[in-house]
């Protein structure tokens, strides 16, 4: 049995050890308290390393390519940011850069750094994992994915749009980051870092 408080209503609960794939919810407000995930650390590490590898082609190769009257234009994540700077929208450019490139990259690096060395806890690892929590909700790859689809449909009547290797890598990156998000058991990592 361990004592915990609900993050949403502050009710104290005593939770018995969970069986694999079991979860515990607050009996007053229904918030998720704990969820047992099988081999969380190694699975999350695998997803994160795969994601980091896919990060490179997803950023280097064009995601979409536009062809019309012999002219060609392609879009990468970084070119989207540069185009916003060309429109003198500095704040929006910085925001887009952070949400779609910098934060997803740093999240991958922090996750690999923490999980890869979680057998040797140190204050530095705890600090890194705290940074991970800080930026966790600011990575927005899945929203960007929907943005790509909307751009694809919108441009369909204007010109021929070709999808590139970058798009497939980006889809892969999205899948791996969702995989890492689902398999990560933050509580288990914290308990390891504490010991």
């Amino acid at each position, binding site marked *: 049995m361990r004592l915990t408080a609900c993050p949403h209503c502050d009710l104290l609960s005593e939770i018995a050890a969970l069986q694999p794939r079991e979860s515990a919810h607050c009996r007053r407000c229904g918030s998720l308290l704990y969820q047992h995930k099988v081999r969380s650390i190694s699975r999350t590490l695998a997803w994160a390393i795969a994601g980091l590898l896919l990060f490179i082609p997803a950023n280097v190769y064009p995601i979409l390519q536009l062809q019309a009257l012999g002219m060609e234009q392609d879009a990468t994540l970084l070119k989207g940011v540069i185009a916003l700077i060309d429109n003198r929208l500095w704040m*929006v450019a910085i925001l887009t850069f952070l949400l779609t490139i910098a934060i997803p990259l740093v999240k991958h690096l922090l996750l690999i750094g923490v999980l890869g060395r979680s057998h040797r806890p140190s204050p530095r690892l705890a600090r890194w994992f705290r940074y991970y929590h800080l930026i966790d909700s600011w990575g927005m790859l899945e929203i960007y994915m929907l943005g790509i689809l909307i751009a694809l449909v919108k441009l369909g009547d204007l010109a021929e749009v070709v999808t590139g290797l970058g798009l497939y890598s980006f889809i892969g990156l999205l899948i791996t980051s969702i995989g890492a998000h689902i398999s990560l058991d933050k509580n288990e990592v914290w308990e390891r870092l504490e010991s």
Partner: protein
Amino acid sequence: MNTALHAGYARCHTCGKLVENMQPVGHNAAHCPRCDSAVHARKPHSLGRVWALTIAGIVLLAPAYAFPIMTVLRLGRGEPNTIFSGITELIHEGMYGIALLIFVASVAVPVIKLMGLSFLLLSIQLRWASSARQRTIAYRFIKFIGRWSMLDIFVISILVSLVQLEQIAYITAGIGTTAFGAVVVITIFAAECFDPRLIWDASTGDALAVEGA
């Protein structure tokens, strides 16, 4: 009901550890022994901060909707579009699905979020006793949907970088995107600063906790 606050515990906002021997409500922060974050029984100055950010968000909605976000030039001709005129144009072009997605992400989500946070804040300050569980679920929903407002800005960033075909077609982004981006960021911070435990403190008449917020 036995809350962590009354038992002298506080849950770390970052790592979820229960920290013992907390002063009931104090702003001189203790630090979490596990992750070294500042530990508070309740998020500090939650009501004031969320009101400030919510009001800022409501004010910024005006320039976000009034100023153009995007101009599409076809063969050198085209008018700047605001968020609303862009949605109207999509409907005229028969792209109903996309029009609906953009409407939900750019209009429905930010408006529901700002109204929802105002409603939750008022319900705490008016010491509502009923439906605390439903209001907690509403908070979780508001927190979840907020980030999807970035959708239109990402679409614009892709279109602007892609459609630069000189005379044939050219897309530029407008100043409305800055205001709209600010609304999204501010409302995400507002949802982060909101402490749903205050809903329960207020509904159970826990004066100790509400005074400190």
